[in-house]
């Protein structure tokens, strides 16, 4: 197992370099360092000298990938790509164009992102699995039929609608919760309730339908018939046997996203004023802050790779037939 994990981690290095290179290429195809400088310096009184000074200050005065004027290894190391990318492999993200330390920002913003994403995942899983199992329990009855119809309706509605409707009814019309904002400590509970509620409801349709499909596949298997023949109640059959055997596809979907929970949700954070990493990424893209965009893409890729490794490990944990070599 240890050797497998180490091998997977080593595979990650070329993947991360490739992702970095791709991000770099995509970013600089549409943005030159001059464009970045102009955006940062504003629209007024920007002189060519000011642009040059900004580029020097932020390390964008060098060639992009290859420094033909340098000698030896400096041809590759004295470039924008190397100067801005090498340190990331030891998680030194440097500073954003606004001068703020990116590592500090990530550490500060992970908490708020997790405060929303973790309860949404856990409560969402519980609600979706329970709802799916109930539909399976009442399969081929009017409850199953209307449950599926409800799921399709819920799936068909835009996520933004849930947010706006949630804010309008719960916070504005009924005055039950703050419409947006965030706070630390116990007071923060009031602020996360609404986004969590909205996100969970928005996810019921697709989640419950997906799990229903999984459970329906399981319910026709021999071991279920055997369990019933042993005289077990339907509840025990569903929650003890079907749920356990349906865990592999569920884990595939859940474990892989676990590390990505840190990255936050783009729209939810923006609408509810949650100072998480999702809104950080959006802001950076809008501000053409390459340092932050690059750091967030790197972090996202790294966490995704970790998620995939965790998924593999969880397979072997849930299904003893799977062995990692």
């Amino acid at each position: 197992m240890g050797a497998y994990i180490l091998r997977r981690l080593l595979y990650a290095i070329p993947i991360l370099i490739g992702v970095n290179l791709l991000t770099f290429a995509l970013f600089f195809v549409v943005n030159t360092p001059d464009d970045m400088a102009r955006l940062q310096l504003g629209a007024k009184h920007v002189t060519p000298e000011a642009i040059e000074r900004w580029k020097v200050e932020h390390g964008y005065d060098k060639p992009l990938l290859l420094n033909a004027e340098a000698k030896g290894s400096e041809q590759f190391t004295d470039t924008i790509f190397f100067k801005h990318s090498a340190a990331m492999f030891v998680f030194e993200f440097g500073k954003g164009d606004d001068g703020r330390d990116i590592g500090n920002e990530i550490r500060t913003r992970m908490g708020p992102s997790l405060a929303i994403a973790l309860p949404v995942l856990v409560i969402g899983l519980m609600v979706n699995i329970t709802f799916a199992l109930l539909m399976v329990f009442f399969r081929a009855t009017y409850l199953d039929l209307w449950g599926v119809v409800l799921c399709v309706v819920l799936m068909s509605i835009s996520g933004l609608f849930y947010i706006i409707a949630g804010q309008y009814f719960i916070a504005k019309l009924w005055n039950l919760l703050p419409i947006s904002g965030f706070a630390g400590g116990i007071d923060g509970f009031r602020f996360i309730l609404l986004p969590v509620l909205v996100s969970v409801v928005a996810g019921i349709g697709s989640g419950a339908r997906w799990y229903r499909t999984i459970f329906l596949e399981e319910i026709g298997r021999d071991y279920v018939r055997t369990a019933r023949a042993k005289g077990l109640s339907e509840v025990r059959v569903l929650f003890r046997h079907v749920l356990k055997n349906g865990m592999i596809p569920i884990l595939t979907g859940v474990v892989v996203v676990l590390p990505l929970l840190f990255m936050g949700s783009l729209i939810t954070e923006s609408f509810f004023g949650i100072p998480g990493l999702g809104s950080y990424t959006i802001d950076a893209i809008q501000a053409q802050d390459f340092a932050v965009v690059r750091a967030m893409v790197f972090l996202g890729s790294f966490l995704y790779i970790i998620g995939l490794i965790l998924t593999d490990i969880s397979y072997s944990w849930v299904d003893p037939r799977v062995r990692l070599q």
Partner: protein
Amino acid sequence: MTRAGTILLLGLSLGLTAGCSDSLNHPYPGSEADANVLYSAFSERPKHLDPARSYSSNEVEFTGQIYEPPLQYHFLKRPYELIPLTAEAVPTPRYLDAAGKPLPDDAPAAAIAESVYDIRIRPGIRYQPHPAFAQDAAGRYRYHALSATDVAGKIRIGDFEHSGTRELVAADYVYQIKRLAHPSLSSPIFGLMSEHIVGLKELGEAMQQVAKAQPDAVLNLDDFPLAGAEVVDRHTYRIRIRGKYPQFIYWLAMPFFAPVPWEAEVFYAQPGMADRNLTLDWQPVGTGPFYMAENDPNRRMVLKKNPHYHGETYPVDGNDEDRAAGLLADAGKPLPLVDAAVYSLEKETIPYWSKFLQGYYDSSGISSDSFDQAVQFTSGGDPQLTDSMRDKDIHLVTAVAASLWYVGFNMLDPVVGGLGEDRQKLRQALSIAFDYDEFISIFLNGRGIPAQGPIPPGLFGYVDGVDGLNPYVYEARDGAIQRRPVEAARKLLAEAGYPNGRNAKTGEPLVLYFDTMASGPDAKSRLDWMKKQLDKLNVQLVVRGTDYNRFQDKIRKGNAQLFEWGWNADYPDPENFLFLLYGLHKKVGTGGENAANYDNPEFNRLFERMKDMDNGPERQQVIDAMLEIVRRDAPWIFAYYPKSFGLRHGWVHNVKPNLMANNTLKYRRIDPALREARREAWNQPVLWPIALLIAALVAVIAPAAIAWRRHERKTA
């Protein structure tokens, strides 16, 4: 009930009641309910709070309250008037010739080699409390020799146990002027100021050289002399300006020229500080009425009253209108009038608007989505609040911004550019065809005034009414300004060589290209409207949508034909708008602000004369001549002067739009008791939906439970 269920319910009830009094949707801690705190929001986090760098309005909103330049704009007087802030008086320049000999005040600009401003600061002004000033009993600075280990665990300024203050001195102002040239600060006005302040350009070059040789070294600004800024005595400093630059006085009212104490720079330059975002760019140190008590630009920023503020009082001189509006009720009272201001990050307009209506924000702008809910127009076209707003005692505050939007013609373009009569007529025809009166009505909800020239209302040089109309686009009918009919545009177009929109020589249709950054569904209707305007003349308009960078690139290289652009005033002087048409500031070739690349020698000559003149009939005459030239040449379609609409609650007082001043927070007064009473009245929780939800759940679950039991029994 299971144990987990009990804990969840307990948590829910705790969470719902924690931190608030009666309103469940209260976004602030209960302890702040009756506090003399002003609540506002910001939609985009500021990038820089260093006074050498901050320029955009969302940055100056904070730095304007913390830093104090020597001058400020009078809060109530119109037209805008500069008054002293930390200075003892508004300085008047002394003029010197090339030999350094004094010249009279009315000396011709060409004879003036230097303008000298002596600025005397009032003694006794003190900085906000800050650890950078903290000293021990022996007079040594406590926090000027910290290691990274000492800084570990400190994430905000308040984490430092000791703080101190000191008196503001003239050297702090000189220090800041030198900072404008600092290579690592990239001050947006360095380029402009280096043309005016003696020696600033050379200072920048010297610093750049040292910074290149020693990239990691912290530059000691005292090692770099600056001829154009020097300390005369403890409370007086001198600025030397090349030639005559009367507009310089306005810059002295901006945070760029506010003082920065050297102690702050030494403090923040220590190891480990920048990694924790403890920098002057994020943790300002000033003498203003407020200091930055909490700086979390991802969530909220809090300004608190500076305990050392120097006792400035509310202005006593206003006009009768101000008195009638209650703007003199606090005359003579010490400023600031609120103890703190809390700015929350609110990126989306819907929650911002909802919180304003709930009373959780004291004031608000009006987004397009909520405009109809807030404002209606009378039969005379005047805006007024809707009944629902008036019922809440909400007040409308309007002002014409010192800004201008225009459609520029690239004067280097072979089709629309040039100063020939045919081209003039072509541009005049297009100016008539673009009906911006209609545009304002459709797309701006009436929030704008059709522009008659480059100078917006409120600035010297602007002439109101029919006397100030653009005769090439408008005409006076029955004492009112009316746009010329489309027939006039068609006639001009024919005279320009395009009868019925076709080239008279080749018969080819006239096709024009409009470059814009606007895109998406919102912009589509506006762009369709633009095409429709030229359809009236049978001229085709091709819209070339592009992103910000490409658009800037096209303008810089002169590759655009028609484009939309705008300008916000830096200061209330016509020079700040007319320089946008000055030939020597052409975008192509010089990288200046003249995006249309307009270059009329007569206009240039008049501009050079006008910029150095004092306001008066003679200057007005020159400006009128310039306006005539520019209206005739029509390098721009003068689109509109935007009008800002804002709302405030009845508990907010002393609100008068001042489009030049950025330090007006100190004048605001609120009535916290009234606010809290209204918040409670407006935010009573409605609980029946919860009961209904529980009933609905029971209605759904009960048959399911019954069916389940039946199923179980059947199985058994």
